[in-house]
């Protein structure tokens, strides 16, 4: 990007537009959809703030693996599952409210670390295809999760209350009610301004994670991760333990995803035992990419912009689709299509950019070589 300095202003603007084509496209979609959908600004603002509190922490968990050059962590689903296990246990022990939320977070951490270690090790064996590996790991661990929750909970792992158990005596019901901790975190210290609720505490926690990430980037470990992300071989020569650094990045991401999932579910107030986590990775990644992040570069700014734009589209798309075509399903499918489309587009742009850069580097090398030969 440093080459832009000596270019004309118009060209720079064009470059800016090209680099931010996805967010610009989304601003356009939202600009068209919002008037058609007919929602009031207060309603939209309220919804956006709720969804920001709910999702931002989860999306922030994706930043660290990107820094370490491991791409979009599709394995964040693992953390989400750990968070859910924590919540199921807490719901069974009937520890509600804020203590319940905190305990669920604490329980999720060891599971997250374990799953993160596994995920990191597998990804180290599949360097260069971390994303597809992470994606398959999430399916694989989903199988293990079902094994534990559907068969072992109640039969091997003691579950006391039959309200969350399946009638057959073992296994957890499809939905676990978290009514007694619903939005406890959001409502504590919440500020109401003209019908708009601001969940201050949730934002504070999210802010803390942002500060942590900013601080972490400057630590030795953070610098190591960036070095590994830039070039693994160079980092190895510099004495950085590449494998270990990469595993730490994934473990951290998984732990944060687990905490984020607890925040997410306390807002929802309802845990769909077997489906809450399946889509979460996809939506978080799509939101991050909508904010202008790419596979190898993402900032906290991308996260916030992404949450706002993506969820604005999510809120307005169904009713807009219904107004335009007369069929409410169209909007539903449209937003799913957009989520997948954005990820596809971002992946394609990343790969083509990488190839172009490779080609350019090759040309430079050739040029340098021919110059050397000339001398």
């Amino acid at each position, binding site marked *: 990007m440093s080459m832009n300095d000596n270019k004309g202003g118009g060209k720079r603007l064009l470059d800016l537009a090209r680099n931010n084509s996805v967010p610009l496209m989304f601003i356009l979609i939202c600009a068209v959809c919002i008037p058609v959908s007919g929602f009031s600004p207060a309603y939209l603002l309220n919804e956006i703030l709720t969804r920001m509190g709910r999702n931002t922490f989860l999306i922030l968990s994706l930043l660290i693996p990107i820094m370490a050059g491991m791409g979009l962590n599709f394995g964040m689903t693992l953390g989400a599952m750990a968070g859910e296990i924590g919540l199921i246990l807490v719901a069974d022990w009937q520890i509600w409210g804020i203590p319940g939320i905190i305990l669920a977070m604490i329980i999720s951490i060891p599971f997250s670390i374990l799953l993160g270690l596994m995920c990191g090790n597998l990804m180290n*064996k599949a360097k260069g295809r971390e994303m*597809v590996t992470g*994606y398959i790991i999430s399916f694989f661990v989903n199988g293990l999760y079902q094994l534990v929750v559907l068969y072992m909970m109640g039969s091997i792992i003691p579950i006391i209350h039959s309200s969350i158990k399946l009638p057959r005596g073992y296994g957890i019901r499809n939905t676990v009610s978290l009514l007694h901790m619903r939005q406890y975190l959001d409502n504590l210290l919440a500020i109401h301004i003209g019908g708009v609720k601001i969940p201050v505490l949730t934002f504070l926690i999210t802010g803390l994670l942002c500060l942590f990430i900013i601080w972490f980037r400057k630590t030795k470990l953070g610098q190591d991760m960036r070095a590994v992300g830039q070039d693994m071989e160079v980092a190895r020569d510099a004495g950085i333990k590449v494998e270990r650094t990469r595993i730490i990045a994934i473990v951290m991401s998984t732990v944060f995803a687990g905490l984020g999932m607890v925040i997410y579910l306390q807002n929802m107030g309802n845990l769909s035992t077997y489906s809450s986590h399946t889509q979460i990775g996809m939506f978080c990644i799509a939101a991050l990419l909508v904010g202008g992040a790419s596979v190898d570069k993402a900032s906290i700014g991308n996260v916030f912009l992404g949450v706002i734009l993506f969820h604005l589209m999510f809120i307005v798309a169904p009713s807009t689709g219904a107004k335009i075509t007369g069929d409410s399903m169209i909007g539903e*499918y449209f937003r*799913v299509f957009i989520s*997948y*489309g954005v990820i596809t587009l971002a992946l394609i742009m990343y*790969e083509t950019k990488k190839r172009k850069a490779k080609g350019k580097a090759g040309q430079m090398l050739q040029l340098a070589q021919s110059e050397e030969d000339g001398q």
Partner: protein
Amino acid sequence: MSKTENAALALGNKSKFHEFVDSFGLPRLIIAGFLLVLFIMAPIVGADLPTQITNTINRFSWNAVLVLAMVPMVHSGCGLNFGLPLGIISGLLGATMSIQFGFTGPMSFVMAIVIATPFALIFGGGYGWLLNKIKGGEMMIATYVGFSSVSFMCMMWLLLPYSSPTMVWGLSGKGLRTTISLEGFYDKVLANFLQINIGNLSIPVGSLAFFALLAFLMWAFLHTKTGTAMTAVGSNPAFARASGINIDKMRLLSVVMSTWLAAVGILVYEQGFGFIQLYMAPFYMALPAVSAILIGGASVNKASITNVIIGTFLFQGIVTMTPTVMNSMIHMDMSEVIRIVVSNGMILYALTRKTEGAK
């Protein structure tokens, strides 16, 4: 592989068994052993073995062509075709249009293939062109191309002007149903052709013969000049370029073939299953096919027709046998969990093997 070979040399008299395990792959061996145990257990726990075998063969005949669709792309080095749903969509377009245009009986099956072909060629062409732009990152992008095309078609199934009363929602008269019965169209059209019945055992010869024909054509193709060139592109791109093969053209051809086979594959699946499934149904259809070919002994850059046959049989065998045997044994239906763990575990195993990591 060289590492294991060196180890074998160093040990000198490493037992035959270990060599066998190395070449066959431990997970594959476990899965084959598991299926064998299931077959032995079936009569003991009171399940009717001929019925079980019939089910397994039936499911084999439904799925084999979809698994066969993996072969060309693996050969040309494009990796596992996670973008299978794109081909499936071409097949679904063929199926629905064939019914829409009023074809019935066996003719509707032929017409479905005929109509699906141009779609498969166009989609496959575009998809192949895209994959040529992003060499090295095929698998992840293929997955998401599949997903986006499926979710795009979800809108299209509602919006396209279909009107055949057998397919659209009865109440509103527009928008396709989620499942469409094939009765009167091509339900079991291949399976009933030359079907052999011995007691409880029945073999859908027509479906198997159709698969055999396609598999033979694929085998023959891989031994033509173009086919060998394709394999060369996959196994050694630098060598292929040096011998004057147009790499991009070969890869494009392989993607188009794979997409077309997926289109035919879903039609064969539907004729066995008896229903067309639309909307989100094709979403995860790539994963069973991918894991089946991997179970059969293929890897990310090597696959043969034998892999397809063995893999589909093992995978479908486990899928059909586990529910019945498990249920009667421990009164617990864990088949779904086993299926998820086995199929995704197999894909993980293939992705994380060191020998294939270098690319």
